[in-house]
């Protein structure tokens, strides 16, 4: 499973407990919808670090990186590419 699919699966299961809201897609706004609250954000960072070796620095903790599944995937891929 690539990181995009893994993120999609993690967010659906952990943020929405398997039941996604109407209109949900990979550009669904996780911040405006309230899904990206402080606790979920922390768990997501832990998950990405431990399962996919995506390391967040303080400068990465900005809304644009967390806005949607697509935004998170792009950020993660860029991070992994720059780490190689």
């Amino acid at each position, binding site marked *: 499973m690539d990181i995009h699919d893994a993120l999609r699966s993690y967010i659906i299961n952990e943020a929405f407990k398997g039941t996604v809201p109407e209109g949900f897609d990979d550009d669904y706004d996780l911040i405006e919808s309230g899904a990206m609250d402080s606790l979920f954000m*922390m768990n997501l960072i832990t998950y990405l670090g431990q399962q996919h070796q995506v390391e967040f620095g303080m400068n990465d*903790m900005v809304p644009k990186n967390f806005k949607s599944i697509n935004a998170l995937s792009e950020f993660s891929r860029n991070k992994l590419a720059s780490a190689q």
Partner: protein
Amino acid sequence: MNLNLAECFFQQARQQPGHPLILGQELDDKTSYAEFQAEVESLSGKLRDAGVNPGDNIGLHYQSGRDYIAFVYAIWNCRACVTPLPFELTATEKQQIFQYIHIDAAISSVKLLDQLLGSAAETKAFPLTEQAVYLKLNAQCEAPPQLAGINAAFIRFTSGTTGDAKGVVLSHESIFERIHAANQILEIGAKDRILWLLSMDYHFAVSIVAYLTFGASIILPKNGFGITLLTAASRHQATLIYGSPTHYAMMTQDDSNASLPPELRLAIVTTTALHEDAAANFYQRFGRVLNETYGIIELGLPAINVSQSRDKQGSVGRILPDYALRLDCPPGQQQGEITIKGKGMLDAYYSPWRSRETLLQQNGGWFRTGDLGRLDGDGFLYIVGRSKEMISVGGMKFFPEEVEAVLEKHPTIQSATVFGVQEKSSWGEPAWSHLVLKENEAQPSEDELRTYCKQYLAAHKIPARFLWVRQLSYTASGKKIRNPDKLRHF
């Protein structure tokens, strides 16, 4: 009639019914004291209809926020007691709480109800709101008989200072004493608007209760991004912020021109030691010092640094007027174990039961914190070592013993230690582990260990690093040595 903190809030609501209690991210998102009182009374009625009786212990399995506060106060209004079941714990960890703490029923988020169904006494859950239900549980243990003699408000599950005590009992009276002791310094009142950033499962008694008792407003931001926090603080003219070092770091790294409101008088840091670089960066960005505190579940908040002087950064402040401090320093040394006595001490450890009186008799009336401290010439306390070794990740606290026990059940691991590490460049204070491999076993991969830990531990408790060592370090009396200094501040 015994003191009830819900009644203290109702008194305040009668005095200032239109005053805002909850402020959301947007300016028009507010709930007044009278509106919130009505919600609490409505929920109390539903809980009584569902079967809640005075003296019951109700598990609270819900995310932090305005509803969490309403549920706690509704439970108290039924003269029942609250045991938080932290939302982020795994189902296994929640089951461990049931094994030690007698819990009659739970209020649960519908989203995570399945984690409690294994303990349910009835198949049908009673709806409280669209998002929450009440569920009668099969208690897995008996409550200690001495509990009936305490007007208990909270039973907080914790592995405790000594590792063998499960649960801290706090009465309405103890919490009342704590908030009044803290408010001699904090001076919270109706003029205050507090930006709240922490988990309510771990922080409630000397903070949220104080705000509702003294008539303040609580700002609950939509998420933890720096720009969101700064916007909420400015929009509502926050006078206090209550957060962890991570939250302040998030504000510091924000690259917009957002600033803190001029009304802000205290930026309180709790949960863990503040790294000096984090304090310096915050000062450089906002021109303000961070106010550190010394909070202990057994004692409350006996020290708060309200000084605005950078010279006192790094100190948790002077001991509060209602507490006495003694440092048990070895001969010739200027630092020693912090021992404290004063108001609002825990009423008991739950399992095995040890009353406040028993605890104090053991130490001549003083509570031994296990932490090491020193005092400067002005009486400011500096924490130089936390021998309790509690780890805090973004305000969520846990003890290393719990994680070590899981690791030591892995078939390849002989023994393990777990300790918190302050990383200069990271967003949190993660745990690391030292592991000793069993003879003739192959070393498992990090991925394998993480997958294994995930079955038993919440994500924030899983060590960020698994380091293999030939042997662990022990004290002369055989206790594990954790928190090796050489790994701190790297």
